[in-house]
């Protein structure tokens, strides 16, 4: 029952993200547009490229969707509104989201097209660099909560949100989350002007609709993860817990979508260099700092 509710909430969230995206992009708040665009996409012909690896081509959008939904399964919206409060929840979300990489590799290889293939390999490099920046800040968060339970992580922020307690980790996690969701400025895998939409290039019709929906859900899941790990989850005065969760998630989503519009796309070489040479040392430093803080000021 709860999981059904969560999936419905995710769909509603994906819809809101789509509205938000369009609003940020052209300044017009239209509530019908995403639905109409989705229906139009369903009605359109879904073209299969000439020599596809059929299994990969068909599986990729679905796998992307599944991995985004699975990631959301361990994130609490209220103390009770969580599908499974796994004892290893903070690790599980990583495990689920790594399959975004597998899905994009499949989508890149499957259609047998140059743009898609380059996009897929680009994302491989990008994610190997940035998956560490997802895992290591979460490690620091779990250190403070002394638990991998996501509910416990939220409770541990009752006095002070993690965004204040470990701002370095928040910054790294936020950047890495954007890179994982291949949002601009990290949209190297789907860069429109470099690869003509890259991994999405060969998808059309229903498959593209699933792909887009999965992408929106992924953004949603990552925003929810940011809220749970760094912004105190459901906690907040006056409003009921679910309202706080919803508001915070929307705010984080808006920030993620807005950030990419205000800067040019990052260069691939810089993305790699900063991820490995700057991001990972900083993440280690963050773990160290949090470790000292936890010992000194329990």
């Amino acid at each position, binding site marked *: 029952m709860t999981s059904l509710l969560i999936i419905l909430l995710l769909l509603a969230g994906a819809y809101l993200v789509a509205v938000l995206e369009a609003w940020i992009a052209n300044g017009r708040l239209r509530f019908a547009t995403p639905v109409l665009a989705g229906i139009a996409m369903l009605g359109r012909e879904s073209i299969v490229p000439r020599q596809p690896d059929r299994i990969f081509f068909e599986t990729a959008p679905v796998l992307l969707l599944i991995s985004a939904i699975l990631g959301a399964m361990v994130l609490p919206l209220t103390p009770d509104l969580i599908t499974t409060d796994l004892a290893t929840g903070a690790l599980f979300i990583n495990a689920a989201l790594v*399959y975004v990489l597998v899905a994009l*590799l499949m989508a890149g290889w499957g259609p047998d097209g140059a743009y898609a293939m380059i996009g897929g390999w680009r994302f491989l490099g990008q994610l190997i660099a940035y998956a560490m920046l997802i895992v290591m800040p979460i490690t620091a968060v779990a250190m403070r909560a002394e638990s*991998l339970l996501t509910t416990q992580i939220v409770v541990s922020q009752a006095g002070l949100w993690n965004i204040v307690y470990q701002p370095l980790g928040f910054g790294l996690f936020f950047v890495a989350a954007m890179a994982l969701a291949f949002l601009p400025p990290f949209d190297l895998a789907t860069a429109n002007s470099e690869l003509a939409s890259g991994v999405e290039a060969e998808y059309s019709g229903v498959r593209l609709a699933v792909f887009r929906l999965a992408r929106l859900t992924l953004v949603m899941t990552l925003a929810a993860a940011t809220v749970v790990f760094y912004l105190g989850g459901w906690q907040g005065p006056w409003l009921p817990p679910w309202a706080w969760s919803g508001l915070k998630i929307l705010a984080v989503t808006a920030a993620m979508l807005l950030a990419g519009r205000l800067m040019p796309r990052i260069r691939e070489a810089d993305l790699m260099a900063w991820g490995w040479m700057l991001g990972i040392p900083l993440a280690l430093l963050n773990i160290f700092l949090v470790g000292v803080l936890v010992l000194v000021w329990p």
Partner: protein
Amino acid sequence: MTTQAFFIGFFGLAAVWFGVVVFRTHSMMRSALALLFSQTALGAMFLGMQAEFLGVLQIMMMATEMSIMAIFMVMFMMDPGGLGEMEMTHQKRLSLVAGFVAFTGAAAVAVLFDWGPVVSVAPDAAQQTADLGLELLGRSMLIFETAGITILTAMIAATAVAILPIEAKTTTNEY
């Protein structure tokens, strides 16, 4: 009890089946991803065996590992797409026999040996994670640290072997 047996059997079968697919397909990408799904099924099997931390860790680690495998497969193969259906094996009979012998040997030991009484209750997941952490940073710290240092060394050594030697840039390839 029986659900657990069902899950172990199901995911075990899936893992073995994907493992066989690895060597049966001609497409290198499929081969690498079949190995990934074999390992993922194994992770799910670990979850079935109530080893939550290890199961999730297995599922997570293998995804990146096998994706890296995939790119090397595509790089180093003559026909990564598998359209040519090339034969890429040698000493097939010997290998088959060896594989079969290994399997029957291990299976015979598994079935015939008396493993003693089976404990039916495992500690709960949170307890396991805590115990594992204490084990790693307590009694087995030396082993764990050694493994950590070794993997770091191996990474550095592998990178050193793999990067282009500086003088090789100037001399032409003599082959």
